[in-house]
């Protein structure tokens, strides 16, 4: 198995804070791999470490077979990092930003200009090419930032929350770009705190919490670990969550999941036939139900089941 990234017992300590508490990852080449977790879970520390910006406190990490500490220069030649905050120069034009990167990568002026031109074109930024980046919208900046990481096509692209703060339309554009990059054979390591994003883009994911990997696998694996399917009940009145939860618990035995929405009760169901008994029991107790659905669990449910608390952030809207 060709590995893009392999880490063993990776830890990172900043003063008294343990940002990474021992991470073991094996990421195959040619996949989109998601690192999912709430704010402060250690995701950004992990990719800064893999992109050679910081050194591990203990443990080892190798990127495409090169040790991130001893062979940092080799690693840098093969990877690109698009950080959490669009790391482009506001005062330069979009095109100048890309020429700058091209030159720094060793392209002659003429090639750097040509490359900047074709990337601006491909990322739908041609018309804004000669405008200062400070005039760009959030989505345009993010696209430019990703383009800057592709001036020389990397073998691995690190993307740190590429869609945070974007409107749904720009977010979909970035998703298309990520898919297209992966389709060209670049391994993408995607950090996100949006469960939906990980579900849509990543072939495999690791869920990180408090500097540790608490679950790893495909989105399907993770969902299966929660239960065969998930029951969602939306109640007509908000105050009825408590009684409804006890009814569901009584009928199903166990499996009621915590919920952030006060009018929703969620539970894992091992046998779909049990679900019909739930709706019957709720009716008998006089609890009005607005929505009743049985589906495969969302990554939200997975995160609840793993940590007993919700992931902090959700995407603004679901398309």
């Amino acid at each position: 198995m060709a590995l893009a990234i392999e880490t063993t017992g990776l830890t990172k300590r900043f003063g008294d804070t343990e940002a990474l508490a021992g991470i073991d990852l094996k990421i195959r080449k040619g996949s989109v791999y998601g690192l999912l977790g709430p704010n402060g879970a250690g995701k950004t520390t992990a990719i800064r470490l893999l992109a050679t910006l910081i050194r591990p406190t203990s443990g080892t990490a190798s990127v495409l077979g090169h040790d991130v500490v001893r062979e940092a220069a080799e690693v840098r030649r093969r990877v690109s990092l698009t950080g959490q905050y669009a790391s482009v120069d506001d005062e330069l034009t979009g095109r100048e930003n890309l020429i700058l990167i091209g030159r720094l990568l060793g392209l002659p002026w003429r090639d750097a200009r040509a490359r900047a031109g074709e990337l601006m074109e491909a990322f739908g930024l041609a018309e804004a090419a000669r405008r200062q980046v400070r005039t760009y919208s959030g989505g345009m900046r993010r696209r430019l930032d990703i383009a800057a990481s592709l001036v020389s096509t990397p073998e691995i692209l690190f993307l740190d929350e590429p869609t945070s703060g974007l409107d749904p339309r720009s977010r979909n554009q970035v998703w298309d770009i990520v898919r297209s990059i992966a389709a060209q054979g670049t391994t993408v390591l995607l950090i996100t705190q949006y469960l939906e994003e990980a579900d849509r883009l990543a072939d495999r994911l690791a869920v990180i919490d408090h500097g540790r990997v608490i679950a790893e696998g495909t989105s399907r694996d993770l969902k299966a670990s929660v239960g065969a399917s998930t029951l969602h009940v939306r109640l007509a009145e908000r105050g009825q969550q408590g009684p409804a939860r006890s009814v569901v618990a009584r009928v199903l035995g166990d499996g009621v999941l915590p919920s952030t929405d006060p009018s929703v009760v969620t539970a894992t169901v091992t046998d779909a036939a049990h679900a019909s008994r739930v709706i019957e029991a709720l009716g008998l107790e006089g609890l009005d139900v607005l929505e009743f659905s049985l589906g495969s669990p969302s990554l939200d449910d997975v995160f609840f089941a793993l940590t007993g608390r919700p992931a902090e952030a959700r995407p603004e809207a679901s398309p």
Partner: protein
Amino acid sequence: MSADTVPAAGDLTGVLGRRDVVPRSGPLAATLTLAWRAMLKIKHVPFQLFDVTIMPIMFTLLFTFIFGGALGGSPRNYIQFLLPGILVQTIVFITVYTGVGLNSDIQKGLFDRFRSLPMWQPAPVLGALAGDLIRYSIASVVILIVGFILGFRPAGGAIGVVAAFGLVLLFAFAVSWIWIIIGMKVKTPESVMTTSFIFLMPLTFASNIFVGLDTMPGWLQAVVRHNPVTHLATASRGLMQELPLGDSVLWALLWSAGIILVFAPLALRMYHKER
């Protein structure tokens, strides 16, 4: 807006998937490219030249007309004495912007990108410094022009002026390394300013830029005499006005070399290390 439409996913095919082996940029090419970036910033935001032009103009005008009569008999007399010193003061002051610029690049995440590129690692720092030297030069020329308008006539001629410029720029280059270190240590560009002004105010005012040494109390003379800015101002004045230089040029060179030898390696090591 049409600029905001993104092509379908397949359109990236043409620009991706290329893994041409790019020759690595050499140290000089990388540094010059980043100096080019500094020039582009001046082109796009000419306002940032205000810092380096308005302040010297203001300083020269204010000090010449406010103190000129009292200190030199007349503003025109005083400026012959003041201008070489004002040049030192303003250039030393604006070196702070090196640290401010570096700090804002770090905060914006731009340095993370530079640091993750396979290039000669000190290039971003040296490139920024090269750009700053150009800004210092622009400021020097502005001060000289304002001085000429106010009646400054250097007895040392063009050679004296250019030699003084060279010495001041060298010292500015040296001092910039200190602000680079502060720029890496503190959290915001504003704190770079405040921190550095604590050093710069006494350094430039407790010198012989505005008045001669012999007007000060004895204890202060001892301090002022050893201030590097005093040596630099004496040298600048001596070169421009053909006055006795003593060992001022030597001291100015020694101070510059000393500061560079101590702070440049320290700054580069800190830059290389993580944050």
